């Protein structure tokens, strides 16, 4: 019998690993060959993922497909790595392989003339392997290992233009900041072993309910800390905008669609553990909600096309966290607004990951479109662009599709997923739910505004005289078209009625087959959210639709006058970077310098002092060793007197005996 595709699932991450090793060792000199191998391999992985998904839709269920013992230490510590297939990981497989494949194809054109093309594609292969290894983990340790590896790939790819100081700095920043978050995850891994004796998510889920120890109780919070680092939640968000120094395909792949959602994936994977601590979940929800709104405000006053998108990504990641958090904020055993807590947690998981799913497509589309524009215009500044809509038709119109999808206009993908989050906030029915509903709505307004601001400024108006934009080649426009199609239609599976009409499995039914709930849809909430997004779009049109030709730099932004001082704050990203660098320079480095001083002067100094004293002591005694015989005899004589005196005092009568 032929092996099923489940049995071949291990090839999905293994193929890119093979490609990485092979291209690093043998084909670095042949740039086109490296690119070809990488693309071929990722297409194969994509195909396998599709077949695996089809098997799952046909009812194959969840399964652990491979189990390799990694560090076995008798009974005490058995750590295995493997390939875990369940709806959540299969959904991620689809997202990761689709976007990876399209980005690979896009990079064929984008990186065509780069000297480091081989290096670039090898890194991409390594990333693909690591990301797939991450989503296929059923245990925390394996996930942590791949979690670190995707961080490494991100570091390597951000620093791809290593001669640029900003790129090198950004790479280091990304690695250090995410690693600070990883510390939380790592602690969680260690704690989890200590209290539960397993790394397996499903097993921890049961054991977690039984524990009352403080450290064990806060362990979800530590996991969340790791997720904050990777998924750019405030205040660990500072690395993501800087990460835009990497090549644009990388921004699309790693810093929009895949790696940055690892944090969301992690929380979603552990949702049933998280949902047992409603307090942590409230944190998750509020940090998510805050990040969503906070980043959206910054995006309003940015001028670099990629940075606007980066802040938008942060904001959308915030939405996902918000959904996961508010869903679990009731606690498993409680009920709220007629829903069981466990149902709400699963609704949160569904809404959060569904937004992850749709966002991956339209945000990758937007980044790749931005790359195409940058490729043509040789600038990142939207104020130095203009008039592109007639010159780069495919790029601009697919970009606009992405913009509409992100802004939440029906029936595009973003509408369905964002609506699900808003509906969830209301369904939870607590005061927190209502507050976060408001936050999310405000964010939706800003999202629509800044995206249309971007489009209007960059694509309408007149082309600067110095630029000669032209449409990019087919390898770059093809992924745009595919992603645009997905951005239009991918959201439909979120709605139960539509899925039913089309006779396909809806997202909620796919993700949790045994759970017979469906995503809620309220026409009123959808209406409000569309209205708010529409307001945002209208405001953008009012300000930017008639962009005069003399608005050629950010100084001309009409919003500047409207917002006054606030605009400067937004432009400076609320100075969070400055706060962090102050902490780094004034606290960490001061302490380090203090330690170094202490080491040189006190620790080493006291050693020197001992040495110095020894020498001095030697000098004091030096005259004694004079070489003069009479002195020595004198000393012996005096010594003898001392001894005799001592004996006389201590042992009465001894002198008399000696004389006798």
């Amino acid at each position: 019998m032929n092996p099923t595709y489940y049995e071949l699932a291990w090839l999905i991450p293994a193929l890119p690993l093979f490609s990485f090793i092979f291209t690093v060792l043998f084909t670095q000199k042949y740039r086109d060959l490296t690119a070809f191998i990488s693309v071929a391999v990722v297409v194969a992985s994509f195909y396998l993922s599709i077949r695996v998904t089809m098997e799952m839709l046909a009812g194959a269920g969840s399964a652990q497909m491979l189990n390799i013992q990694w560090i076995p230490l008798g009974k005490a510590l058995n750590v295995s790595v493997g390939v875990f297939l369940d709806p959540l990981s299969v959904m991620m497989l689809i997202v990761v392989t689709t976007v990876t494949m399209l980005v690979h194809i896009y990079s064929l054109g984008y990186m065509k003339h780069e000297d480091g093309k081989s290096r670039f594609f090898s890194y991409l292969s390594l990333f693909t392997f690591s990301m797939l290894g991450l989503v296929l983990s059923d245990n925390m340790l394996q996930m942590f290992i791949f979690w670190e590896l995707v961080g490494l790939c991100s570091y390597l790819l951000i620093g791809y233009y290593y001669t640029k100081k900003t790129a090198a700095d950004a790479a280091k920043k990304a690695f250090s900041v995410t690693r600070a978050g990883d510390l939380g995850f790592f602690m969680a891994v260690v704690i989890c072993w200590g209290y539960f004796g397993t790394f397996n998510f499903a097993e921890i889920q049961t054991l977690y309910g039984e524990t009352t120890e403080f450290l064990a109780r806060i362990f979800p919070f530590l996991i969340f800390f790791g997720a904050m680092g990777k998924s750019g939640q405030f205040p660990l968000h500072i690395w993501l905008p800087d990460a835009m120094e990497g090549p644009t395909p990388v921004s699309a792949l790693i810093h929009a669609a895949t790696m940055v959602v690892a944090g969301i994936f992690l929380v979603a994977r552990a949702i049933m553990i998280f949902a047992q601590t409603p307090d942590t979940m409230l944190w998750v929800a509020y940090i998510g909600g805050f990040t969503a709104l906070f980043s959206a405000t910054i995006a309003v006053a940015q001028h670099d096309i990629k940075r606007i998108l980066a802040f938008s990504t942060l904001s959308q990641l915030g939405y996902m966290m918000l959904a996961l958090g508010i869903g679990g904020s009731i606690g498993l055993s409680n009920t709220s607004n007629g829903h069981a807590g466990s149902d709400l947690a699963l609704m949160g998981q569904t809404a959060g990951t569904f937004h992850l799913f749709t966002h991956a497509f339209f945000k990758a589309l937007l980044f790749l479109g931005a790359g195409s524009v940058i490729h043509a215009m040789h600038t990142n500044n939207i104020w130095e662009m203009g008039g592109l809509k007639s010159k780069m038709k495919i790029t601009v119109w697919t970009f606009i599709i992405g913009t509409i999808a992100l802004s939440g206009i029906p029936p595009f993908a973003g509408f369905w997923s964002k609506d699900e989050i808003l509906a969830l906030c209301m369904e939870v029915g607590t005061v927190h739910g209502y507050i976060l509903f408001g936050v999310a709505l405000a964010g939706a307004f800003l999202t629509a505004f800044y995206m249309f601001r971007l489009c209007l400024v960059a694509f309408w108006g007149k082309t600067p005289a110095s630029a000669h934009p032209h449409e990019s080649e087919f390898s770059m426009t093809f992924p745009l078209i595919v992603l645009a199609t997905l951005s239009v239609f991918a959201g439909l599976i979120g709605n139960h009625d539509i899925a039913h009409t089309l006779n396909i499995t809806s997202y909620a039914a796919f993700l949790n087959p045994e759970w017979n709930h469906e995503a809620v849809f309220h026409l009123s909430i959808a209406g409000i959210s569309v209205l708010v997004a529409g307001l945002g779009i209208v405001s953008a049109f009012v300000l930017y639709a008639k962009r005069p030709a003399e608005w050629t730099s950010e100084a001309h932004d009409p919003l500047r006058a409207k917002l006054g001082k606030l605009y400067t704050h937004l432009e400076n990203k609320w100075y969070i970077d400055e706060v962090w660098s102050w902490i780094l320079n004034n606290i960490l480095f001061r302490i380090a310098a203090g330690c170094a001083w202490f080491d040189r002067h006190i620790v080493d100094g006291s050693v020197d002092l001992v040495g110095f004293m020894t020498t001095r002591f030697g000098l004091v005694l030096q005259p004694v060793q004079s070489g003069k015989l009479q002195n020595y005899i004198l000393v012996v004589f005096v010594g003898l007197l001392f001894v005799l005196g001592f004996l006389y005092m201590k042992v009465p009568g001894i002198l008399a005996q000696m004389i006798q």
Partner: protein
Amino acid sequence: METYSAIVLSLLIFVPLAGVAILSFIPRSQENTIKTVTLGVASLVFILSVPMYFAYDISNPDMQFAYIANWIPNWGAYYSIGVDGLSLLLILLTTFIMPLAVIASWKSVHFHVKGFMISLLLLDAGMVGVFCARDMLLFYVFWEAMLVPMYLIIGIWGHEQRIRAAVTFFIYTMAGSLFMLVAIIYMYFQTAAVVVDGTVISNHSFAIQSFMALQLPYDTQVYLFWAFALAFMVKVPMFPFHTWLPLAHVEAPTAGSVDLAAILLKMGPYGFMRFCISFFPAVSEQYTPVIIVLALVGIIYGALVAMVQPDAKKLIAYSSVSHLGFVMLGIYSMNIQSWQGAMLIMVGHGISTSALFLMVGLLYDRRHTRLIEEFGGLWKVMPVFSVIFMIVCLSSLGLPGTNGFVGEFLVLIGSFNSSLDHARLYATIAMLGVILGAVYLLWMYQRIAFGEIKNEKNKSLKDLSLREYALLIPFVLLIFWFGVYPKTLTDKTEATMQKNLKSYKTAIENVKTTAPGSEMKKNVNNLQVK
């Protein structure tokens, strides 16, 4: 096979000495012959040692490849050697590093080549001897014998401040080991007699076994423990006895730094595991908090000081202080995971820190400076170097998939779950050290390899030569091997560690069941023989 088992350790000790004899007959002007012979000898030693890895019986926790011969029987001192799970990997690490140290010195040692090579071989013999000695006198002889060549290597072939460095190194380690000598002699006079076929050959014995059998009064044990511990703490080095290390590392020639980092430092933790803990379990237990706090200070403090070092070698030296802090934390957390982790860090640190020193040495050979700020943008002119340098940095900061991760992970898992008081606090503090490691190593890497080339002198730097490539590839392979499949190492050490832990736990239990503060009776047998 049996012959091999019996003689392999002696070969590892005496082949280098034979090499020294051969070298002494080669005229000093024939430098190439001298280098080739040394490399041949060191490689031969490595090749001889490799079958040990496969022949070692992982189910047997006791000494293997053991051999015993008369040495000074009247004193109860024997030429007694053997290998168990504590020493196997360290011996293999030693034999692995030595040929590479010779290759590393190929072009960077310019004068007295003969003397240098002889010192290296003597060092080799001494280091292997330390790890396999089963007789305290033999151990002490190797321990001191190894100091001399190291002292010469730093003092003669070192850099500007070599004399100060050599003297500091010598005084520190000497001062530490003299206390140990006193303790050894004291304990020696408490041991039982050596009796063969009913005849008393010697009134006392230097065998490690006899030392372990001693049951001394608790107060005495405290003094003895600290006498041993001091010697080993200097070697580790633990805060506050670490200041000789940066100085010695910076001033030593590359081969010296490599041997120091890879092997000499490991003698400290090895000594704790082999002697302090098994001779004085109860005292070890009592002073565990002291050792662990010093280890934690080392982890954090070493990392912080490393962050602000302008000199690459000094930075790496302080990173060693931090890494060895993890090792000591692991050893004193007293469970199987933490011990396995400590051993993996010891071996892993031996690999990655040696590689770091070698690579900084390669830069020094080219530019005659070790200051980080002198470099920048090297990726452009030395891409292969930069890639390997990155791999090594990442392994040193403990990235999963490289050797650095598994050891740290096991130590932290072990220390977090250890039965000590405050174990969880200790582990949490140690985890902070992990992130600082990322900061200083990446910062160094970035300043050396990334950016534009600002310094004119760096524009014409040559990438790795074939010799340098051959030198570094073994390190890269080991980094990935140990990182991806650490089971191959942990299997070797497991049995011995389980056994030692068990006897440690038993000893502690015995102390706890007797009334606290009561002096244990000296072994009755001892008195009878006298």
